[in-house]
């Protein structure tokens, strides 16, 4: 049973490697349009900047709290420093991912 599961997963993996389904299928057809609407769309850039900027504030505060608590915990018990450091890096990467979701939303707002 596990052999067929592995074969199915590998076949799916290979198919996805060879045929990437377009995530922006609607946008590919518009690639030849001139940028006629560029003049009246200053709001898009403003929205994109605000989206990315305000989200990064939250991420900064969050990762700062993680760092400070990790330093406190390591100062209390230095022999646990390695495990605390690994947990800190992991959690910081997850929170940074959330801030980057907002940056991606900013990209989409700014150019589409």
């Amino acid at each position: 049973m596990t052999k067929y599961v592995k074969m199915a997963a590998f076949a799916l993996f290979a198919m996805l490697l060879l045929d990437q389904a377009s995530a922006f299928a609607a946008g590919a057809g518009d690639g030849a349009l001139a940028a006629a609407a560029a003049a009246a769309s200053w709001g898009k850039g403003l929205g994109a900047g605000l989206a990315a900027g305000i989200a990064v504030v939250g991420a900064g505060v969050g990762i700062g709290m993680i760092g400070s608590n990790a330093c406190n915990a390591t100062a209390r018990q230095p022999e646990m420093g390695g495990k605390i450091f690994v947990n800190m890096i992991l959690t910081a990467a997850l929170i940074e991912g959330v801030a980057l979701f907002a940056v991606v939303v900013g990209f989409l707002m700014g150019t589409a």
Partner: protein
Amino acid sequence: MNLLLAASGEKHTPLGHVLDKSVFDASEWLNVGEIGSVSSQMLTMIIGVIILLFLMPRVASRIATGASSEGNERYITKGRLSQVVEVMVLYLRDTMLVPVMGEKPTRKYLPFLMSLFFFILTMNLIGLVPLADVQNIIGKFGWGDDHFSVIGGTPTSNINITIGLALVSFVMIQIHSFRELGVVGFLEHLTCDLTKGPKFLWLVVPVIFVVELAGVFIKPIALAIRLFANMVGGHVLLATLLLLPGFLPDLTGGAQIGVILISAIAAVLITFLEVFVAFLQAFIFMFLTAVFISLMSHHDDHEEHESHESHDAHGQVSDLQPAH
């Protein structure tokens, strides 16, 4: 979309350096991705896969325990790449995956998770090698076209490729959950066992069910977007720093040296950060897939985890002692 126009324009924009470029126009018979034909990031991915296909079986055959005719020599791993890979795999398995998933699921899913990890790691690291810029230089001095590049770019900075990886993770998570819990048990698991509690909690069950069902689909998409955004963000930052001297006016004297120097030093330091982010994001993708797989197991499996808390691979006691 305007993104594509920015890439093909005359100006070098930071975003233009990150986007896909078409290599040759095959869109009559092959319609893939945003570009609609074979793109340079796709070719880079194929090259990365070929590198992995040649390296990894050799590494694995050296790590594996050999025939018993060699005596005790068979346990030694020879070769530098094999030793690096062995250290990485052992560390990830013993200190990251076994505490999360338990012994048996780790052994079952370790090939899949390690394939995911090394694939994403190779894709991320290939993006840091300046293949496209070398080809730009060759093109500029060879025939005057400084946009020439066939291979180059980070494959994982393409949302299509990361969504594909997330789809593979999603399929594996669902396979595990349907095998462990069954279809009915899977739906019960989505209610977080609220139906077994006091009767007044039954009002919350629809809300919890909808949220958990959405979470089943959103979590792999978040994996894809996290990897994609980290890779794109890093390369856009690098391109922005390196394009800063392009905004200098034509001053005489050495006034431009300062900007160029600072731009170069900052680019080197940011590249170090990018190498770290490459490893970290590959690890995060694999680790979160493992966590999502383990969330879909039976909860009575957690009793087995208690026996692993008393010692880990380094022999240190892992439950915290009160400070004396």
